[in-house]
């Protein structure tokens, strides 16, 4: 279990993380979501002992995490910028990880390097943004650290590379279960991987729920415009899309079976709510108070 108790991170007068308390059971894939400046990276930096919290504690299986060799060896934090020197070659960065990481799988790293078409001879400074991201993914996955934190690691990767990353992450997670925390803005793309979602807003935890539970908070209704409008009347609409005479709306409402039956009789279809719609709704300035309530 990873426990954060009253964790606060301040930069001068700016409070990046404000009194956050969280219990994160291990062996799950977490999605850490939040708008820019919500404190995601600061919180992850504290989790990975990159930074001592201004107040509060982080404990990993009951042990204080900061400067704890046993905990740090089990933690792999990959930031959106690679923590390697620009003058180093890719293969040197991977070799170094192999020296230091007890769980490093060199064969897997080599396979991922091929998959992402990384040239091991290239210096970090010569890698494109997407290639640097791919190198971060290789470092994060091949380390097989019990706590793997990927902070916007895959920004800059093209759609094909991101698809490969999601597949590899899931396959490797199933083969080698561990705790993975993904921080991302590409919510819809990654949402299917999340087992639990934590939403941060202005340094505070807005929500921490199982993904399925979160999806159950709302419903997507699709059908003819008039029928959808009639069904959705009076409900909170999280998002809507229209194409020709068809409209799809996402509602912040748990309908009763009778409501669903009534809708289906009117030609409507129902689906789970999109995590991104919920996220946008919950973190929109006008909705914050309601969400917190």
């Amino acid at each position, binding site marked *: 279990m990873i426990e954060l108790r009253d964790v606060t991170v301040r930069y001068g007068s700016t409070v990046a993380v404000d009194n956050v308390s969280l219990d994160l059971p291990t062996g799950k894939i977490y999605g850490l979501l939040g708008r820019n400046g919500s404190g995601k990276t600061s919180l992850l*930096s504290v989790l990975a*002992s*990159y*930074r*001592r919290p201004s107040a509060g504690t982080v404990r990993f299986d009951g042990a204080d995490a*900061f*400067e*704890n*060799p046993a905990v*740090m*060896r*089990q*933690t*792999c*934090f990959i*930031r959106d*910028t690679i*923590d*390697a*020197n*620009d*003058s*180093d070659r890719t293969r040197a960065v991977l070799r*170094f*990880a192999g*020296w*230091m*990481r*007890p769980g490093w799988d060199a064969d897997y790293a080599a396979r991922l390097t091929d998959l992402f078409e990384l040239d091991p001879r290239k210096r970090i400074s010569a890698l494109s943004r997407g290639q640097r991201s791919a190198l971060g993914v290789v470092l994060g996955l091949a*380390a097989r*650290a019990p706590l793997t934190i990927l902070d916007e690691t895959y920004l800059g990767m093209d759609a094909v590379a991101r698809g490969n990353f999601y597949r590899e992450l899931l396959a490797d997670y199933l083969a080698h279960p561990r705790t993975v925390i993904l921080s991302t803005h590409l919510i819809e793309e990654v949402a299917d991987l999340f087992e639990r979602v934590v939403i941060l807003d202005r340094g505070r935890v807005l929500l921490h729920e199982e993904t399925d539970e979160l999806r159950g908070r709302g419903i997507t209704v699709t059908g003819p415009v008039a029928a959808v409008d009639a069904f959705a009347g009076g409900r909170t609409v999280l998002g809507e899309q229209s194409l020709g005479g068809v409209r799809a709306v996402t509602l912040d409402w748990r309908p009763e079976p009778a409501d669903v039956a009534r809708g289906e009789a009117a030609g409507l279809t129902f689906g789970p709510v999109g995590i991104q719609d919920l996220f946008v709704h919950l973190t929109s300035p006008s909705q914050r108070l309601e969400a917190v309530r």
Partner: protein
Amino acid sequence: MSVYRALFRVYRPIIIPFAAILVTFDLIVTALIVYGAGHLGFSMWLVLAGNAAKYWLLVVGIMLVVMQLRQFVANGATRHEFLAGFAVFGLIVAAGFAAVVVLGHGLESLVLGAAGRRGVGYPTLSATGLLGEFGQVLPEALGYLISGALIAAGFYRWRPWIGLVVMLGGAVPLAVADSLLGVDEFGNARAHLPFLAALALSLLATALAGWAFHRVISDVPIRRTSG
């Protein structure tokens, strides 16, 4: 793998070519002077290797903080493990450089003597003088290493103007070691202080800077500086 072993692996490809260039350059320049003047009135090895041992270690101290700290922490080492590895690596490298400087000087002295090419002012080094010279060069090398590390740590941890203040303190071990234990190319000590007193003062300044370095790094946030 321990931090100091990893550091040796990282620096091995740098140390070996550096030493090769140093030896080659020294041999060429020494040969040219002896060929031109017929003798050597000072120790070229003390000039080149003596300074290289100091300034290279100053740079290594800076590089260890700016380039390696982040890399080690990102790969699961604690700051304290890094500091311990830094200490072991620094001590071995400084001792190695000091030994190379002293043995090289001894060899140069021997070869020039055998060839009858020692000039009047040449600082002849006998076998009995090896230990004394090692006792001067090693604390100097350590002082430069710690100075580099503390100066870099100040800039790494704080804003530039605080870094500048830390730099003043960081320069103390280097300045004390140089002024109290430094030897010129003629083998003359710059200060006229008893050796043990000079050694004690230099080691004290280095130890204080080492303690300050430990305090600065032991909980420093790991920044995204580029290397």
